[in-house]
């Protein structure tokens, strides 16, 4: 499991995942509460890629129910926190 010294590191990693999956997302556009529907290209594949990257970076398994429920960066952050 990746060791994170604090919440700041965790948040940074989650942000990086979002920037990787949504390459057109700028730093100023990033908002923890921005909803899935406000992203132009957050489709079912992007959803799965967000989960896959989080799973591989933190060496965790996100179950199916959690994987379909999150709709914002904050949701993913909370999901990962609960599994670390």
């Amino acid at each position, binding site marked *: 499991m990746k060791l994170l010294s604090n919440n700041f590191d965790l948040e940074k990693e989650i942000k990086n995942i979002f920037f990787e999956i949504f390459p057109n997302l700028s730093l100023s556009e990033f908002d923890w509460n921005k909803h899935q529907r406000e992203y132009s290209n957050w489709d079912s*594949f992007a959803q799965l890629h967000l989960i896959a*990257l989080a799973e591989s970076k933190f*060496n965790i398994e996100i179950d199916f129910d959690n994987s379909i429920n999150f709709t914002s960066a904050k949701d993913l952050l909370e999901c990962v926190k609960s599994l670390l």
Partner: protein
Amino acid sequence: MKTLINFLEDHSKNNPTKIAIITKNNTLTYQELSERSSQFQNSLNNFSKNSVISLMFENSIDFVVSYIGTLKAGLTAHILSPNISRNNLLFQIDNSNSQLLVTENLDFSSLQNTNSLIKIKQFSEMFSKNNCTHLEILPNDFAHLLYTSGTTSEPKGAGITHSNILFTLNNIVSVLGYSPSDISLSPLPLSHSFGLGCLNTNLYTGGQLILVNNASNLDEILEAIQKFNVSTLAAVPATLIKLLKFHKNQIQNELKDLRLLITNSTFIPPEIVSKYKKILKNGNLATYYGLTEASRSTFMIFENHLNNNTSVGKPAPHVEIKIENKHNDVGEIWIKGSNVIKEYWNNSVDNQNFIDDWIKTGDLGYFDKDGFLYLSGRLDDVVNIGGEKVFPEYVEKIIKQNNDIEEVIIIGQKHNVLGHTLKAFVKLNPQSTLKKSDILSFCLKNLEKHMVPLKIELVDEFPVTDYGKIKRFLLSSEDLKK
């Protein structure tokens, strides 16, 4: 129509003292092969024509005598690997309806406590000096029976007729130029179509064949090449790769005079092809594509001026190949020709693969504009992801562009939303420090979104068949167990 036996008898008459087979400790002339195989034939007089006799031997002169003797007797030689598993052995004996198992110093304890009633005899018991009964062998009589090794399913018996054999031998000789002056070396098991084809080619042309028992014994192979002034070498790609890795300098010298280096249709990395093209200063590297049930359907001679190192070549003479059920240009390979068997042995289910003299191979491939065939994987491996068809081998090819990755296998996994998604089993190069997330990032950058594997598993080794092919179905089933 002549059969292989007629050609052999011609060589025995015309060149009786010429050595046909060389092993580590022994040699056999054409006359000796003719006489000893007739004695073996005589010991089979009690069996009715076309009965099946199982032969289980290491690569040896005794096997060659037994095989030819069985064919001369008008019987069908069911050829078994000495490394066969117990379950497979029992299955094949039952499915083939074999009447007798002939072997040599092999352990048959696995047949004890089973319902198998097959008789077992040692090779040394199989000689009779009674007069030969001369049988008429018809072109459509079965000569031998081989079971496919099956990387995806239960073994299937392929009964090869005398006319199948002769058609394929004609093609091998006309395309690859084998002649009586060739001295060939084969470290391939004679229980496999590739190795058996090498033996038959030699007996057909009247050349000399050196048999090596173990393809991993690179020193013995190189020593024999030098000692016997070998002109053709047959080897699987794994042997070629190992020779380059462990004997790079030695082979520059020892292989340079080969006329032909023949390998088979398992994927050969293009850089390996390039290296051998340079080493073979006076000869060619060639490969072929075929199944046990449709032997040598294409041939590929790698030419220096052509940039098609990943092709398996063009259809063999008088063999037709078509691509059916295409998706883009890729579809299932169908083959038609006198090298194709008519049906599987006692197997009504898989006989559905034969339609109007075509065999549906289950292999995926495509032709380029110049008519060269390329393989793209197995039909069974195609994964449907949310309605999009994905060919695992394509995804593997892209991922292997990452220099840190030595090997990757992609399989489909069931998924609640998309039907299936992909999982990658990755073997890293020894020095690599790549993490799973790095591999995923590479995939996200280089693959279409539906092709990105959602699971990555790092492995040290892959499960492989005796012949070095990765057992994809085992990866799938292991994964399902989890």
